[in-house]
């Protein structure tokens, strides 16, 4: 018997997501059990199973951290666009007033 991890897609717009696990002698039985456990009430429209031993991950989670300051990858880094936008509008008004005067 092996542990099979179960992945479920709840709709065509969603990616497969982890739903849980079952214990089964082979992948065919794992799928039947997964269907019974995770699609009892049409909670999704597709299932995958894969042996837990076939899943690879990081043994050291600290390796998942971003190595240096990369704050510019995040929306917060551009939050001051609001004040910049206001300054630009004020500046534009000056420019347009000068243009109209000349």
């Amino acid at each position, binding site marked *: 018997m092996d542990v099979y991890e179960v992945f479920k897609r709840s709709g065509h717009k969603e990616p497969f997501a982890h739903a849980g696990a079952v214990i089964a002698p082979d992948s065919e039985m794992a799928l039947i059990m997964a269907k019974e456990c995770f699609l009892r009430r049409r909670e999704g429209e597709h299932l995958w199973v894969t042996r837990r031993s076939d899943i690879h991950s990081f043994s050291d989670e600290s390796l998942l951290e971003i190595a240096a300051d990369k704050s*510019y*990858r995040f929306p917060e880094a551009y939050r001051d*666009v609001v004040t*910049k*936008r206001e300054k630009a509008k004020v*500046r534009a008004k000056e420019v347009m007033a000068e243009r109209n005067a000349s």
Partner: protein
Amino acid sequence: MTYDEKLARFNEHIEDGGKVETNDWMPDDYRRGVLKFVEMHANSEIMGALPERECLPIAPSLRRKMSLAAKIQDEVGHAQLLYRVAEDLGKSRDTMFHDLVTGRSKFHNVFHYPVRHWGDVAIIGWLIDGAALVTQAALRDSSYAPYARVLKRICAEEQLHLRHGEHITMELSAGTDEQRAMFQEALDRWWLPIIHFFGPRSNVAKDLLLRWKVKTRTNEDLRQEFLDRYVPKILELGYTFPTPVPYRDADDYLVRDEDIDWEPLNDIKKNQGPETERRLTWRRDIYETHRWVRDAMAEPAVHAA
């Protein structure tokens, strides 16, 4: 079931808003159409990285350089996601890449043009990414589900790029006369290509991708959304438009069909744009000089004993 019966059932499925997965039965024209469309999108992402790449050395600060580099990396990443979707439809990545660098396949018109200064980065980041976001957001409802799912992730990142581009635009626009002139000069060069970006009016009767809902909206509909959203913002910043100059009609900003010169787009469709040859050569050179990286990564790790 005969082919005609399968086709009828497929059409009905699409008509009802049904989605298509890679291993589902689909007509050959659907498969070919989606493949060509996604391949062109992937090509555009990887070629689209180059004009901005050319601007990296002229970034005005280290911070701007790092954020532009991060954005370029995102675009290349989008190409990888999209090539993966296209590959599953039956054309290898190697073949797609070969067709791109030898000029047999196409990429979006805006990436065939030169960049001259930092004003170009503002235009690309704000208006071209803004135009791309209008079209890509509509494609999140595409009938080809693997494409629609990948676009969710791509659109989330494009949203950030748009913010990045607007940030640069607003900094230039609040700045000196010289800074504002840079934006205006870039706008003068890019406006027509941006109008072209959405393509000529769709032929709804003939366009199979529209009928099969791979594309969900017409070219002119998407262009109109872009104009309505961005023209007022550009006017508010005190800039002026070259031909085709948008005019206001009730709540819409329209451009006249007869004001759009399509000749430059026709040249680009033949891969004869101003920068086509140089950029494709550059892309080919990068592919060759980086071959050792791909080769090295294709081998399993060798661990020291």
